[in-house]
């Protein structure tokens, strides 16, 4: 088990290193000048280049950058003069995290619930309804859903705030919009997982023991069907994270996703780099956590890794 964990952590570190290197060199290739602007005189530009260390040879810049990253310093934002990338992350992360957690909770609870309902009513109207909802959840792009929700509840019915992130009521629409895609995927997995467990031999054993159907469903079927769901929590988190780019932009939420989109539009590549690495780091850690939790919870995995 220890070996397994060490191995996974090593791979994670390697991934981070490759990601940092790749983003560094990729972004140095970006055409266009981050300091471009009609009012910027050449001397100022030159000073800015020196200030940001862009005059040094590429290898040196790379080493400096990597050294800074190791110390947890992502440098300065190019577009927002004087803003440290770390500060941007520190200010914007709480809102994003809050939104992400809300969306994950909604997605997990409803996704699993719908998956169970569909599986238990297999081939009946309720199942078809869920399958159709799942397909819609997967097919309709998140920004369309978000825009429609915003329009319907915020503009047309005027019962929920249209934008910003200030009170509980502000969180409802974006969290729900962000959760839909993940919810659909989870529901689909849960349904498939339930149906697979349904045909397992131990369900027959449970029946032969004289357990009632409801007891079997609760004690054996749902319990076992939930384990595989844990494995897709990693991808689900990634899905929520990339989803936040758009949802935050649409609802004007001052989170990391919105900053990321703005930074890309402004060619603010230190900020893009910082955020990319931060996202990468966040996801890799999340994946490790999900994996280890799975190993601890599921006795089968626990056993095979020992």
């Amino acid at each position, binding site marked *: 088990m220890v070996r397994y964990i060490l191995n996974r952590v090593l791979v994670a570190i390697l991934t981070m290193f490759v990601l940092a290197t790749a983003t560094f060199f990729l972004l140095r290739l970006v055409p266009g000048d981050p300091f471009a602007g009609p009012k910027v005189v050449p001397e100022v530009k030159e000073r800015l280049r020196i200030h940001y260390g862009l005059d040094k040879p590429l290898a040196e810049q790379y080493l400096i950058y990597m050294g800074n990253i190791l110390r947890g310093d992502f440098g300065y934002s190019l577009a927002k003069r004087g803003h440290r990338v770390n500060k941007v992350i520190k200010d914007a992360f709480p809102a994003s995290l809050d939104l992400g957690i809300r969306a994950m909770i909604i997605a997990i609870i409803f996704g699993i619930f719908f998956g169970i309902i569909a599986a238990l009513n297999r081939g009946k109207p309720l199942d078809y309804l869920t399958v159709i909802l799942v397909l819609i959840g997967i097919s309709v792009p998140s920004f369309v859903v978000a825009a429609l929700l915003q329009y319907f509840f915020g503009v047309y019915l005027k019962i929920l705030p249209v934008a910003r992130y200030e009170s509980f009521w502000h969180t409802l629409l974006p969290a729900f919009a962000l959760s839909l895609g993940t919810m659909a995927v989870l529901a689909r997995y849960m349904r498939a997982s339930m149906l697979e467990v349904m045909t397992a031999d131990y369900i027959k*054993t449970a029946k*032969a023991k*004289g357990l009632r*159907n409801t007891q079997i469903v609760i004690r054996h079927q749902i319990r076992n069907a939930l384990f595989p769901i844990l494995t897709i929590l990693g991808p689900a988190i990634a899905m929520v994270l990339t989803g936040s780019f758009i949802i935050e932009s649409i609802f004007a939420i001052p989170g990391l996703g919105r900053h990321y989109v703005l930074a890309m539009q402004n060619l603010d590549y230190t900020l893009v780099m910082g955020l990319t690495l931060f996202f990468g780091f966040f996801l890799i850690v999340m994946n490790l956590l999900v994996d280890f939790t799975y190993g601890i919870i599921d006795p089968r995995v626990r056993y095979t890794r020992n």
Partner: protein
Amino acid sequence: MDNEKLLDVKNLTISFHTYVGEVAAVRNVDFYLKKSEVLAIVGESGSGKSVSTQAILGLTPIPPGEIKSGKILFKHEDLLKFDEKEMSKICGSQISMIFQDPMTSLNPTMKVGNQIREVLHQHSDISRRESRERAIELMTLVRIPEPEMRIDQYPHELSGGMRQRVMITIAMANRPDILIADEPTTALDVTIQSQIFRLLKELRTKFDTAIILITHDFGVVAGIADRIVVMYAGKVMEEDETDQIYYEPRHPYTVGLLKAVPSLADNEEEKLRTIDGTPPFLLKIPSGCPFADRCEYAMRICKEKEPQYFQSKDSSRVFCWLYHDQADGQLQRFKDREGRLR
């Protein structure tokens, strides 16, 4: 006579509706089980032996399955008329079952102890402490070493033989009247096989439990079964007492199965043989005897008309045209050729 019958399956017909059509898995099957006797149901896979016994506990998946006719009388009550609640009182307490693959028939994410205790709690009102003690007691009884430790382990931490012992513990926990063992040793090593059978015999003597043993292997039934029912293509082919079947098999199919057992064919000339061909696909049931195409002694009539049961004693019948009065010549040929087996 009828009073002795603990379980009486009558005229059972079960079909499965698949997307290619209706598959008649079990056709007009009758068998019975007396108190504390061991009945072996022998047949190849797909012969309907598992389907007909799973119906006893209401394990037939409906749909796609459909029980088209028949009765399953247990203590004179038709189990097929029972609702879920009534069935759940019978299952695991008066009738219980163990399955072929102990790897998959135990819940992989639940401690074995809890799986044993679950069946205790289900059928009696005992405290959690009592059920734990009782579970350890039962595990000792089926000779699981170190039950106090094993009780908190998960199925994958046990060997195949141990897992099957856990399944037997679960099945015997409430001292059932009937234990249905569906190929209980097929997935296990040969050495473990005999241990499991010894255990089953012992438990039967101890608890007076009647056993239905389902198997495809004639080799395992000799030492344990009192009576044998041979099934093929969803039909009972032959039924007789164990000794009678071993020393004077009457159906050519039974003969074929017996020849496939190593120990019975170990003399030099008679090499181990398999029956040529494959069982019919039960989507299109042949008009005559289902075994005709594979039978060495098939006659014209076998392809055209389904045989009847020819009864010799109360406990003995055979589903074969050879025993028709007019088939004397062919029957003689059969007896001459297969006499060596006796």
